[in-house]
């Protein structure tokens, strides 16, 4: 079993924390994990990319080859398309619906969403709205972790346990809201 994932977004959107949560859950489920991140303040507001590889056998490269990703998960529609070349023929393209507009030439969002919908396996998730519904508008990340989860070799319980552990030293309501966000995201992508 091998799952290759590309995580995309804009610097500051928390792409790396999504990668960390999925990686942590995969480690606790006993998989080998390799996760390659983009670091440095230089990425503020710029396009951000992380590679995440989960396997039960040896993983040679930290980077996913083009045409090899089982999942491209993006916090933002344009960024999801930027890495479409990585997607395997039957891979899933999962994107948050809300555009992040910090450039003057952001393309017509309708065209972008229509293009995403052309991929054989695709999901467009109203992440901001679902986070609000979960009672924590900051939990957009967690909605997207949930949206990724139907495409991951990890049980929802394992992921929930990871989320609980992450917020163990916070008010219990924070963990609950995050788990709710996760489940709303999961339901939206299933």
């Amino acid at each position, binding site marked *: 079993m091998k799952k290759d994932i590309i995580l995309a977004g804009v610097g500051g959107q928390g792409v790396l924390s999504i990668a960390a949560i999925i990686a942590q859950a995969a480690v606790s489920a006993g998989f080998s994990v390799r*996760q390659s991140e983009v670091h440095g303040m230089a990425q503020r507001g710029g396009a951000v990319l992380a590679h995440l590889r989960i396997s039960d056998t040896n993983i040679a490269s*930290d980077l996913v080859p083009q045409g090899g990703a089982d999942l491209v998960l993006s916090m933002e529609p344009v960024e999801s398309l930027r890495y479409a070349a990585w997607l395997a023929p039957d891979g899933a393209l999962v994107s948050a619906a809300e555009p992040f507009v910090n450039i003057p030439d952001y393309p017509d969002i309708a065209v972008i969403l229509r293009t995403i919908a052309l991929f054989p396996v695709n999901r467009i998730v109203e992440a901001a709205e679902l986070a609000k519904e979960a009672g924590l508008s900051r939990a957009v990340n967690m909605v997207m972790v949930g949206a990724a989860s139907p495409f991951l070799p990890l049980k929802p319980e394992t992921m929930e346990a990871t989320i609980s552990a992450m917020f163990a030293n916070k008010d219990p309501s924070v963990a609950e809201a995050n788990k709710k966000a996760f489940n709303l995201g999961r339901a939206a992508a299933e």
Partner: protein
Amino acid sequence: MEEQALLGDEAAALGAIHAGLSAAYGYPGTPSTEIMEYLIENAKGNAHIPDTFHASWCVNEKTALEAALGVSFAGRRAMVTMKHVGLNVASDPFMNGALLGIKGGLVIAVADDPGMHSSQNEQDSRFYAAFAMIPCLEPRNQQEAYTMTREAFDLSEKFQVPVLLRMTTRLSHARAQIKTGPKRAQNPLSKAGDKTQWMLLPAYARRNYVSLIEKQPELLAWSAAHPSNKLDLDGRDTGLAVITSGLGGNYYEENLEDFIKSRSGTIPARLHIGVYPLPEESIRRLCEKAERLIVIEEGQPVIEERLRGILPHRITINGKLDGTISRTGELDPDVVRRGLSLPPRPGALNSGAVILPKLPGRPPQLCTGCPHGDSYETIKKAVQELDPAEGHPNTAINADIGCYALGATPPYSVPESIVCMGASVGMARGAAEAGIKYAIGVIGDSTFLHSGISSLIDAIAADTPMTLIILDNSIVAMTGCQQTMVRSDKFRPLILGLGLKGEHLIELEAKKQFLEENAAKLKKEIEYRGLSVVIFQRECLEAFRKRKKNEK
């Protein structure tokens, strides 16, 4: 010990701690920063790491390496961390350090940045190791980053030379599980006995240089026998030889299955190189029957360029020099795939069902509300209002390395040069002396302390008619907000102490509401026909956030 998921940088740091590290020094620089951050975080000791050791940032890479030499002189183990271009700054003690009788193990961890994710060039530190004639270890995964770092200390003490640990961006910043070993105790304090091994007076240095040369055959024997320099000949097609090094080995293996299929099942002979000096004998054996050799190395063609001295001329060598492997940029599985003449893997896009619209680039930018943004607006305004008859050719705005380098692109587009840490000051001076009327240097507070200050001493001594603008955001922002060595309130006495006239040392608050006022004051200093220093002050937003969080 337990398994942990660590960044390559963290794995190297943990390797150093487990090797009995006594002190570590460095200057922040992507992708090396996390090595020192991990060391600083654990320097006080904790449940996992019982001993304490010293770890701190320095004003620059040269001072860091010199401090580490002092630790080694005292018989204890030291690590220095920096990025590839930082080694240029430290190159003086680096080259000379190779001639010393290293006592406590000294490991210089340098993270290269092929692909220039956040750097000015792609230089390959393996050249430096060869130049200084010291061993270089090149881990290819997080586990090796850990074990090779441990080994590097032993090696350094065994051969009495500094050892270079070469990391690259992808390894530094990728995370995987590693297995750790038991922690070794720190060396007892025991000062170097033979002073002549530590004094590079010509008579001693000549002798030490001979002894460095004499060590080379032993080092070659060590690298030839090293398990990381793995030669695979048995059952292989020896007509085609492949040399891989560092992460190039991983990308080769990623494509190996398809490569073997494309060659109807035959596997090429292979040598993976993980430690240097270059194992020449293994290279000769690899290529004994080969007609063709493919070289896959991460960085510059360090191995490839040396092959002609080792191999007969009849062999075709494919690598970076003939463009088989892209000469520039980071290696990745796809670059190597093309180099092996394999067709692209089929992907979702190949079916033709989806045509992508044109996607705009999304370059990094200054944070919204960053003090540098206001400073650049001010500089722009002041420069626009300079004597219009003089025009643009009579101003030069030389900037430097840091977040503020992002002011070079729209909407600000102010800097006209960005070369290396500290260069802005010297370049402004040169521009002034070449006859440019309004020569301006723009530098950050940490960069100023790093190496800008020495050029300011020159400029003050010469009373160069120029304006130095220090963008003081109270932190090393770009690499993740490390503390600067000298706090903002000390800049004024520091610069006055160098001899600048007080009336031409101006401090301004970098805020939008003071734009008009600040621009007028700045313009006055730019027009002044002598040397001025104008300090724009306001805390970086990230630093502010971090500070507030810590204060809570």
